[in-house]
């Protein structure tokens, strides 16, 4: 799914200033993009604009070259899934099965096919044994995986993760990060991951950094994550390893080039 922002301006009614003005960018079909920014920088606002929960004050948003409008939004929204920050906000059903089914019912998928889809994607996110359990009883990471299964079952072309790990413990965070990586590798989906954790941007094809309503950095993780000064000025913090790499660059020591190379490799595999 290709997403295009053209000169988008957006302001909340209650606020004095727009969140951004004349924001433009294009996200190509089938890519994984990380949007980084501190709390309040406008990341969720972008996500909500993409899924049509908010409407720009000016400018256009195009999805596969079709402009998002009142007429087109319903069809387009069916092709997108979003996983929110708080795992408790995702649920409506009595059982995990109901929850995965919920979206499918909305899409009027025939019953037989629905049962198959649910099994298939519950297995994929490793939640098959929980289908008849109540979602309330699950851990945060498990809840998020069920939400992912729901989006996958609808075969959406785009999945947006809006800080989906920030309320999870390290185990849950790992589960979801692995899930994102596997989605990227095994499915031809477009993924947008919204986060303030640099660790979670490292596997993306592209990283965009948002600050004060502007995209201040845009490129591959290898390039963007080295920009210590801009990242810090944008309220972000370098991962410990990257910070060390930065400091080491100015020093002279034995085996410098092999150590630097090995560190990069280790950081990217973390």
């Amino acid at each position, binding site marked *: 799914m290709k997403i295009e922002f053209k000169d988008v301006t957006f302001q909340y009614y209650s606020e004095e200033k727009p969140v951004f003005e004349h924001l433009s960018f294009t996200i190509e079909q089938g890519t994984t993009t990380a949007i980084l920014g501190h709390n309040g920088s406008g990341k969720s606002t972008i996500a909500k604009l993409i899924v049509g929960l908010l409407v720009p004050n000016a400018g256009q948003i195009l999805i596969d070259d079709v402009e998002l409008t009142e007429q087109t939004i319903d069809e387009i929204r069916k092709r997108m899934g979003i996983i929110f920050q708080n795992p408790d906000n995702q649920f409506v059903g009595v059982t995990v099965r109901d929850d995965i089914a919920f979206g499918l019912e909305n899409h009027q998928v025939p019953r037989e096919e629905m049962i198959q889809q649910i099994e298939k994607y519950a297995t994929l996110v490793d939640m098959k044994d929980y289908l008849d359990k109540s979602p309330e009883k699950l851990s945060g990471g498990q809840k998020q995986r069920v939400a992912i299964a729901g989006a996958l079952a609808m075969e959406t072309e785009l999945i947006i993760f809006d800080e989906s790990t920030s309320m999870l413990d390290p185990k849950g965070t790992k589960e979801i990060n692995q899930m994102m990586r596997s989605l990227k590798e095994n499915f031809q989906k477009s993924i947008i991951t919204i986060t303030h954790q640099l660790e979670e941007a490292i596997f993306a094809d592209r990283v965009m950094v948002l600050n004060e309503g502007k995209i201040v950095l845009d490129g591959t993780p290898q390039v963007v994550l080295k920009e210590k000064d801009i990242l810090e000025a944008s309220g972000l913090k370098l991962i*410990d390893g990257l910070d060390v790499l930065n400091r*080491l660059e100015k020093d002279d020591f034995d085996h410098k080039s092999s*150590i630097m190379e090995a560190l990069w490799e280790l950081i990217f595999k973390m």
Partner: protein
Amino acid sequence: MGIDFQNVDFKYAKKATTKQLDQVSFSIQEKDEFVMILGQTGSGKSTMVQHMNGLLLASGGQVRIFDQNIIRSKKLKLKPIRRHVGLVFQFPEYQIFESTVLKDVMFGPKNFGKTKEEAEQLAKDACQLIGIPSDLLERSPFNLSGGQMRRVAIAGSLAIDPDILILDEPTVGLDPKGKDELMDLLVDIQQKTHKTIIMITHDMDIVANYAKRVLVMNHGKLVYDGTVQELFENESHLKQYNLDLPTSALLAKGLKEKGLLDYQRLPLTKSQLYTAIVRGGEDNE
């Protein structure tokens, strides 16, 4: 002694076969300590700290708080205990309800019988301590950023001026800058006021950078009470307790495996990693 647990047992359900606290024993001084409690989700950390201010009562063993026995009895008075030990819950900002920041922070001291003037002074002091600028005091707490709201909630507990402050996962959900700022403030408060601070965390980089003493919970048992360095050096324990290494330690180990780094002590923080690398592992003390 500030907090003293001897063979403490606890079960949420009387009939349950597993205990959520199982023979837990330790003590924490009434001042000058900075203790971090680790352990995977469900290991009993929150249950344990709720015993530290009488919110939960042990089913077996003995809990003493400032030399008072905390047992189920009509005579047990919880207010004096909570003057000694303040507990800040997880996501405390969900419990903010007053119309201004100042009023919200004043709620605690007023509840403990302070006059309006006294409560206001205590609240202002607490806000200053936790880094809430005075121009925010008359604002609605609900329009603040997540990090600011978290601080308002913590100020509410500080305003009671407890000797010991306990925080249950205070950095979760904050952005990295917010985390660092909050940790620096806690260290600062600890040094200025000599209060004992106890916090629960899952963030091993925070543990590596800030902890002095660490308690580890596993399946309701206290399985470790000691220094950070010793904890992270013992890999089989870490596996057993489902704990990760700090980022810098992971990188150091990776470099060592590739034969690119050697060290006597595992580097835990980024400055230790940096030093180990530039010195080629020699002489890192």
